[in-house]
Every structure is written in structure tokens, then in C-alpha cells.
């Protein structure tokens, strides 16, 4: 029954001789084939990485290379955590602490500033917002890396997590995103009404704005977490090899065991697990957030 009612409206189109050719959104065989190829190319390196992580080194060095998984994953992962001088476990813990702290920090900072820019009036607002947008175009962390490092040396913060976390909190994109989101999700009348009722600005932010922009906060949180988890240059410089992030630990693993493919691949496999989980659980939000953000730009 359901299948019939489901198909009924669709059926006439493909069979109607002329219309199907004219339909600009019809997927041709060529479209489907090239999409299939694109998806294969997207997925294959990840798949192959996991395959090698489940193999032995003899397999990895064989020609043609193996394409199906075997049973050595657990053993290889254990070797990663036991690998000397890689400090993989420390790396994972550090990365979790850094990524979570930065994510929470950026979401709070951006939601506060976004609310002020979108819903409050104050002198210099447009100028300040413009400066945020302009600095989005400048990769500040990479430009100022030398003095930033010296600053950390002077403060005695090198090799501490706060030296990694604090500079990452500067994120113009987050402020811009939350400004856009608040504009659309929090009607100004609502803010005015709450003010007439005698609510303070902080109260309005907490009770009116925050509940309304929660989906935007979620999108920002997901994107920030993914970004910070993958950061490489700054942690590499400011942390020492025995106190790394997961990316820096991966590099150490790669340097020291360059011929031990299965070990390195097991390491990369472990390193993507958190983002894989984010992707599986929040895939819809990631796509939605990206697509919404793109249209607003």
C-alpha cells in the first residue's frame, strides 16, 4: 500500500517520454558514475589506513598492497601506546583537554559578542564588527608565531597547555557566525520587551538569547572541536616532545618508526576516532551548519 502511494506521484515523470530528458535535475548514468568515483576516492584512503592498521609489517610491504583487513588491530594499537618517546597517551589526553577547553571558551566568547553585535546598540559597534571580519582574513597565529613564542618563554608558559589554549581562543569566525545567527534567531522586539520588563542585559542574554541560538552554538562547537583537534604548528612549537598533543605525537611516531607502517597507521587510526564519533553523531548538524553558513556568506 505505502509503496504504491509513495510511487504514485513520481511514476509519471521518468516514463513520460519528453519530460525526463528536459528535467534539469535528472541524474544521468554519467552523474551517478562520477559521484560513485568521487565517493570511492573520498573514502578509500581512510579505509586503506584502517586496513593497514589491522595488518602486519610484512603485509604492508607486500606487492600488491593488501586491501582487506586482518586481525592485528588490537596488537598494533597497544604497540602505539607503548611506543617509546611517542607519548601517545599523553598526547590524546592533552588534545582532549585542549580541544574541549578551547571549544567551550570560543562558544561562550562568541555567543556573548555575537549577542552584543546583533541585539544591542552601542557606539563603535559597526567599526568593531568590521575589525572582526577583517581579521578573519589574517592568519594571526602563524604571522605572529615568533613573538608569541617569546611571550610564552617570558611568562614561563612553554610546555604548558594554557600556552596552547589561550591563543586559540582568538577566533573571529566564531564571533561572526554567532552575530549572524543571533540576528536571525533573536527578534529585537523580544529583547526590547524583556528590557521593558526590567530584565538586565545579562539576564536577557541568558534567558532570551542563549536558548534561541543553541543550534548555532552547537554548530560552532562541532566545527571548533574538529579544527582544534587537528592543530599542528603551534603545539609543535610551544610543547616539548614528552608532553605533546595527539598530532605532535603522531609526528614523533612517524619520525622514529618510519618503516613500521602498521604502527604509524594504527596511530593515525586512533587519532581520528574522536572526530569519527563527532561525525557519526552530528553528521546532519555538520552538513546543515556548513550549508547554512555558506549561504549567509
Amino acid at each position, binding site marked *: 500500500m505505502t509503496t504504491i502511494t509513495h510511487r504514485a506521484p513520481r511514476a509519471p515523470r521518468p516514463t513520460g517520454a519528453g519530460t525526463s530528458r528536459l528535467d*534539469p535535475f535528472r541524474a544521468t548514468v554519467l552523474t551517478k558514475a562520477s559521484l560513485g568515483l568521487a565517493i570511492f576516492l573520498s573514502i578509500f584512503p581512510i579505509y586503506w589506513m584502517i586496513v593497514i592498521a589491522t595488518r602486519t609489517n610484512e603485509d604492508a610491504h607486500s606487492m600488491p*598492497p593488501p586491501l582487506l583487513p586482518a586481525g592485528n588491530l588490537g596488537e598494533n594499537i597497544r604497540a602505539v601506546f607503548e611506543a617509546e618517546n611517542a607519548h601517545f597517551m599523553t598526547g590524546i589526553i592533552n588534545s582532549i583537554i585542549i580541544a574541549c577547553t578551547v571549544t567551550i571558551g570560543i562558544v561562550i566568547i562568541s555567543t556573548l559578542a555575537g549577542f552584543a553585535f546583533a541585539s544591542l546598540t552601542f557606539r563603535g559597534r559597526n567599526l568593531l564588527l568590521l575589525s572582526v571580519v577583517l581579521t578573519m582574513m589574517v592568519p*594571526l597565529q602563524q*604571522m605572529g608565531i615568533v613573538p608569541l613564542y617569546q611571550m610564552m618563554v617570558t611568562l614561563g608558559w612553554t610546555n604548558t597547555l594554557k600556552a596552547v589554549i*589561550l591563543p586559540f581562543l582568538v577566533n573571529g569566525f566564531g564571533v561572526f557566525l554567532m552575530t549572524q545567527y543571533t540576528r536571525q534567531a533573536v527578534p529585537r522586539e523580544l529583547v526590547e520587551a524583556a528590557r521593558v520588563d526590567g530584565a538586565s542585559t545579562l539576564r536577557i542574554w541568558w534567558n532570551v538569547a542563549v536558548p534561541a541560538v543553541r543550534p548555532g552554538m552547537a554548530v560552532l562547537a562541532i566545527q571548533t572541536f574538529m579544527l582544534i583537534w587537528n592543530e*599542528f604548528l603551534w603545539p609543535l612549537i610551544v610543547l616539548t616532545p614528552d608532553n605533546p598533543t595527539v598530532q605532535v605525537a603522531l609526528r614523533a611516531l612517524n619520525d622514529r618508526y618510519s618503516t613500521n607502517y602498521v604502527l604509524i597507521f594504527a596511530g593515525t587510526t586512533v587519532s581520528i576516532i574522536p572526530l569519527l564519533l563527532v561525525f557519526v553523531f552530528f553528521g546532519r548538524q555538520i552538513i546543515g551548519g556548513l550549508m*547554512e553558513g555558506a549561504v549567509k556568506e
Partner: protein
Amino acid sequence: MSLSVDAGSRTRTVPPGPRRHARPPGGRRFWSWLDLRATPYLFVSPYFILFAIFGVFPLIFTAWVSLHDWQLAGDKTFIGMENYTELLADDKFWNSVLNTVGIFVIATVPQLLLALLLANALNKKLRGRLVLRLSVLAPLITSVVAVAVVFTQLYGRDYGLVNWVLGAFGVDPIHWQNEKWSSWIAIATMIDWRWTGYNAIIYLAAMQTIPKDLYEAAAIDGASPRRQFWGITVPLLKPTIIFTVIVSTIGGFTLFAEPVMFGAGLMTGGTTGQFQTVAMFIVKEGFRDFQYGYAAAAAWILFLLIMITALINFAIVRGIGRSR
């Protein structure tokens, strides 16, 4: 999404109302005046304070450092523009600029073209759209380091999958790290693999805002899908395309992790620097050779290069906005 938003805000705003009104307004006037005036600044201040400390200050200080012969131990002598003149005559620096721009071009042009085509394909009537989009985005979950590790193995001379596939067509094994062209291609594919899907999703979002009847009218007039794509889709996507060009420019000019990992974790970028980028040059000078002043000067020149490119892009964006 919007439904839950409305429900949330309405239920939250009602309670404070009556209770607040009951209070005498007397001394509160000053506080509410202060609240109205000062709180907005308080709200934006966390961002701007952090921005001043970790964004603006290092940038200005970089300029100061770049005017000195500044060593690790803190020995510094003011030498004016000497770092800059030395840098502009340094073949190794220009080599790194050439590598950066070269990799940027051979990575970005095919990437954005492929992303456009991919977005167009994703915009067709297809089943399982979410799964399709997620699979295209899947490379984003891998870190740059992981990508570089996997691709470096794929491009391995002796056991690499790429050479094996090429070997099936009779091509001799290529040592991808050895030559400029081959290392550029290898690094460019790492960038493209990671970002093509992302850009395709951005384009797809913009494509979906194009009214469908435009296409239907064109189809009735006999325009082929290919002509519709180049005649309707691409022109209307221009602002989005420029946005992605700007983002790719910044990413491309600061390219670091891929070439570092491709070259066994070293900052030299191959035996003769065939894939050393400017970011690697800066880190090598500053943090391996401890020539802070020299590295800072290189950072400023890189900054200027990015600013010029960004300004050109910005002008194009504005130009397009006006002509509409």
C-alpha cells in the same frame, strides 16, 4: 530548527516579567543606565582583550623583532631593514615562495573545478542524500598529519599504491619526494583530497538558493544541462566561488603540515628544498636556526603577500556586488 528556537525563547522570557514590575524603580535607574551603556562593551571585551594580547601584539612585535639581529639567548642589535634586504636577496626564501605559490595554484584550480562539478552532481535528484554528502565530507575527519602520513605511504617509492597502479600501465617507479613537480603534485593531492568535498558542500548550498524555474525555462528553450551549468549555475555562484578562493588562499599561503610530514618531519622540504614552503622556512629560521629576527621579517613578507591577495579578492567581491 526554527520551531524549537521559538518555543525555547518564549517559555523563558515570560517568568521574570511580573516579579520585576513589583519592585520599586528608585535606585535602579542608575544601574539600568549603566547596564545599557556598559554591558555591550563588557560582552565584546573577552574577544577583543584576547585578540589584543594574542593577535595584535604579536603582529606588531613581529615587526619590531624583524628590525633586529635577534638570537635565541636574547642578544639583539638593531639593524634596521637589513633582515628584509637580506631576505629579498635570499634564493632559499624565494624558492620557498615559489613552492608555496606553485603548490597553491596546482592544488586550488583543479580542486575548485572538481568541487563545482561534484556539487552539481550532488544537486541532482538522488536517493540517500545525507549519506552521499557525508561521504564526500569524510576526509575532513582526518587530521592534516594523518592525511600526510597516509598519502606519504601511498606515494612510497617501493611499496606505494600509486606507483603500483602506475606500474600496471608500464610507468617506472617514481621517487615522489625527489623532484619539484612530483612532490608538488603529491602535496597538492593531499590538500585536494581533504578539501574538495568541503568546497563542494559550500557550492551545493549556494546552488540550492538558485530558483529552479530558471533551469526549467532554460531547458524548455533547449539549453543542454552543460550549457545550463556554465550559463546559469556558475555565474550565479560567483560570490561563493570568490569566498572559497579567499579561504583557499589563506590556507595555501600558510601551508605547513603536509609538506613537513611528506619530508619525514623535517623543515627543509626535501634535499634541495624542492617543497619547502614559506611557513616551513619561517619555522626553520626561527625555531631550528634561532634567527628570530630573520624569521620575523619572513613572517611579515608572508603577511603582506596574503594581505595583497586578500585585498585583491575583496575588491573583486565588492565589484561583483555592485554590478548586480
